[in-house]
């Protein structure tokens, strides 16, 4: 007889492919725990200007003053004193993969990054622990004035531009984890796209945690000037350890009039990583901001990419997929804040929960007084694969304007026995049938991805559905 649906989904997510780790031959590794001294040491190591050092120390005060969030996920397992806040793996950044230490290079090879760069990327940044160890941008884009650097180099080489925007979209005291990032940030991407420049191929950053109890705090700032376009993609993985690591990023994006920015995340952390990220963009007149957010890994994710629609005619989209397996809680969603008239937004969230996993949609839709003619649509669909798993929806809506058009839809469904039987009657195994139903469920999002990422996402889903029978 066929195995039951419960058997099929049991063990999904147990075969994480990226759980290997390298030996630690680091240039510099801080002690465990967080203090004023550690923050000063990070700043000194980077030879930063005084204003950044002060910004960090002030942020540390905010971090210490703020209580842990009491909403969202269970964060009681985070031991801030047990974390390494800064690890510099190599002395210098490489311009060629060959210049990296062999084990680190091999890690990137296993993750397929150099190959992807050759095939379809306009630029790549590769962050290992706290520092971006490899960085490269195509020469023709450099010639057009595009800046794509790691954040530390960005600060060194374009201090005035960084200072103008850094911390303006997400203030250092925005929330406890944004304050933490502001105090100990390291790495991340700095991107500036000049007016009218359209970058056809994506820029990619890849984030890898290697050490146990590592804290990774990258900081990204993207400025898309008038009429310009960029698609930025980030991916992330980590080894499997018995104790937890922390990833807490801050991403700030400015899209000027008529510009367009798409930010795609394929988050595939191992199941011992707390992933607590603040992402926010502002979009001015007729600008478009799109977040495509795929969350497959981590122990606990709390992430709600936000768009502030500041200029008339601005458009924002959030496409979010969450896949919660055994021991995982994906608390994800999106925020759209309509400040200007005739702005539009769409939030589409798809979540899959299996093997006791929990996924929550948490979203905010806000229309300020005067943002007349605002239109917004929020769609949340949840798919639950077994009885042990859970899904919740927390949609917050605040409307202070009468002339608006707002829609909200939510569905919860299960994989039906009849649907599985139908597919199996065509020769698909139960796992293949379930994977096909799940791929179809997330198709509205994968079809928005460049082909290579759609294939990658489907492959990851396939991988999580396989090896689960028997």
């Amino acid at each position, binding site marked *: *007889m066929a195995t039951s649906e419960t058997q099929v989904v049991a063990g999904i997510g147990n075969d994480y492919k990226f759980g290997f780790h390298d030996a630690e031959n680091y240039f510099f590794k801080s002690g465990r725990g967080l203090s004023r001294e550690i923050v000063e040491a990070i700043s000194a190591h980077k030879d930063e200007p005084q204003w950044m050092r002060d910004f960090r120390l002030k942020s540390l005060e905010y971090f210490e003053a703020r209580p842990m969030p009491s909403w969202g996920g269970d964060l009681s397992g985070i031991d801030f004193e047990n974390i390494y806040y800064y690890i510099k793996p190599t002395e210098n950044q490489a311009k060629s993969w060959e210049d990296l230490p062999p084990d680190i290079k091999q890690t990137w090879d296993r993750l397929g990054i150099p190959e992807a760069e050759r095939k379809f990327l306009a630029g790549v940044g590769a962050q290992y622990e706290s520092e971006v160890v490899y960085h490269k941008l195509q020469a023709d884009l450099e010639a057009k004035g595009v800046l794509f650097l790691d954040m530390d180099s960005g600060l060194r080489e374009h201090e005035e531009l960084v200072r103008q925007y850094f911390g303006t979209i997400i203030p250092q005291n925005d929330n406890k984890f944004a304050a933490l990032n502001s105090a100990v940030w390291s790495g991340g991407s700095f991107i500036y796209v000049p007016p009218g420049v359209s970058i056809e191929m994506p820029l990619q950053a890849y984030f890898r945690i290697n050490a146990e109890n590592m804290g990774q705090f990258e900081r990204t700032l993207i400025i898309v000037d008038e009429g310009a376009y960029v698609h930025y993609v980030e991916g992330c993985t980590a080894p499997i350890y018995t104790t937890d690591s922390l990833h807490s990023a801050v991403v700030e994006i400015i899209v000027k009039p008529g510009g367009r920015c798409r930010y795609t995340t394929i988050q595939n952390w191992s199941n011992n990583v707390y992933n607590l990220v603040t992402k926010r963009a502002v979009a001015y007149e007729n600008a478009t901001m799109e977040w495509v957010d795929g969350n497959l890994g981590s122990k606990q994710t709390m992430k709600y990419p936000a768009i502030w629609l500041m200029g008339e005619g601005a458009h924002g989209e959030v496409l979010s997929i969450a896949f919660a397996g055994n021991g995982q809680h994906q608390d994800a969603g999106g925020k759209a804040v309509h400040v200007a008239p005739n702005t539009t937004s769409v939030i589409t969230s798809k979540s899959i929960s299996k093997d006791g996993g929990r996924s929550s949609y948490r979203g905010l839709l806000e229309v300020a007084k005067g943002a007349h003619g605002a239109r917004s649509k929020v769609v949340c669909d949840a798919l639950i694969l077994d009885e042990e798993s859970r899904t919740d929806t927390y949609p917050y809506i605040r409307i202070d304007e009468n002339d608006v058009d707002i829609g909200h839809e939510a569905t919860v469904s299960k994989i039906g026995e009849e*649907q599985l*039987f139908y597919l199996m*009657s*065509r*020769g*698909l195994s139960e796992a293949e049938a379930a994977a*096909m139903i799940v791929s*179809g469920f997330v198709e509205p999002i994968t079809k928005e991805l460049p082909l290579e990422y759609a294939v990658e996402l489907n492959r990851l889903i396939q991988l999580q559905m396989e090896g689960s029978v028997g």
Partner: protein
Amino acid sequence: MALLEIKNLHVATEDGTEIVRDLDLTVNSNEVHAMMGPNGSGKSTLAYALMGHPAYEITDGDILIDGESILELGADERAQRGLFLAFQYPHAVPGVTVASFLRTAVNAQRKAANGGEDDPVKIPEFRKQLTASMEQLKVPKEMAGRYLNDGFSGGEKKRVEILQMAMLSPRIAVLDETDSGLDIDALRIVAGGVRGLVGPEMGALVITHYQRILNYIKPDFVHVFVDGRIVREGGPELAEQLEADGYEAFIPEPVGGES
């Protein structure tokens, strides 16, 4: 050795209600068998039980393909042995296109035929075969890019079932009320498609309420199925008699004339 052999088959639902009783039937390649019965006679239960639906239990008897029992096999393994069921009510799979579904199904069966090793069909070859089958069954080209059965009309679903059959080349096709919901033109095309596949490589069991489809798929054998059992068997003339006299004439008298 018979292709499909059903011996003394008893099928019950999960609550123990017996739906099919003591059924014997043999289907060989080159043969079309019609199983005709009124509503509620247990025809669809039989179809599901043959395919291995988990909601139906075989309480007695056996089902064999090439002389081997398939009772312990899941629906996927039965399909891999060459069994195909055209559903009366096919299910929708939103987000999965007809073409992508068919390719996955074809590859799953090729993998099974290749001893569990992947043996994917070459894409140009697959496309050629799909285009040819779609043309033959008058399935519009754009259907290949639509999500499987999602928002399809009744007739579209039935045609796509037969398209699946053509692409998967089964050895035994069971068609469950494929004629329902089809207009005369569609019926002719679908029936022609089925008849074209029956031959040395395939036999078919056509389950239906009406004789209509049998005008286009000439059956070699007709079985009248009432209340979970076969009450009469014969050649094509039996279908015509049934159409003229109705099922009433075939409902057996209670034994001993009592109750």
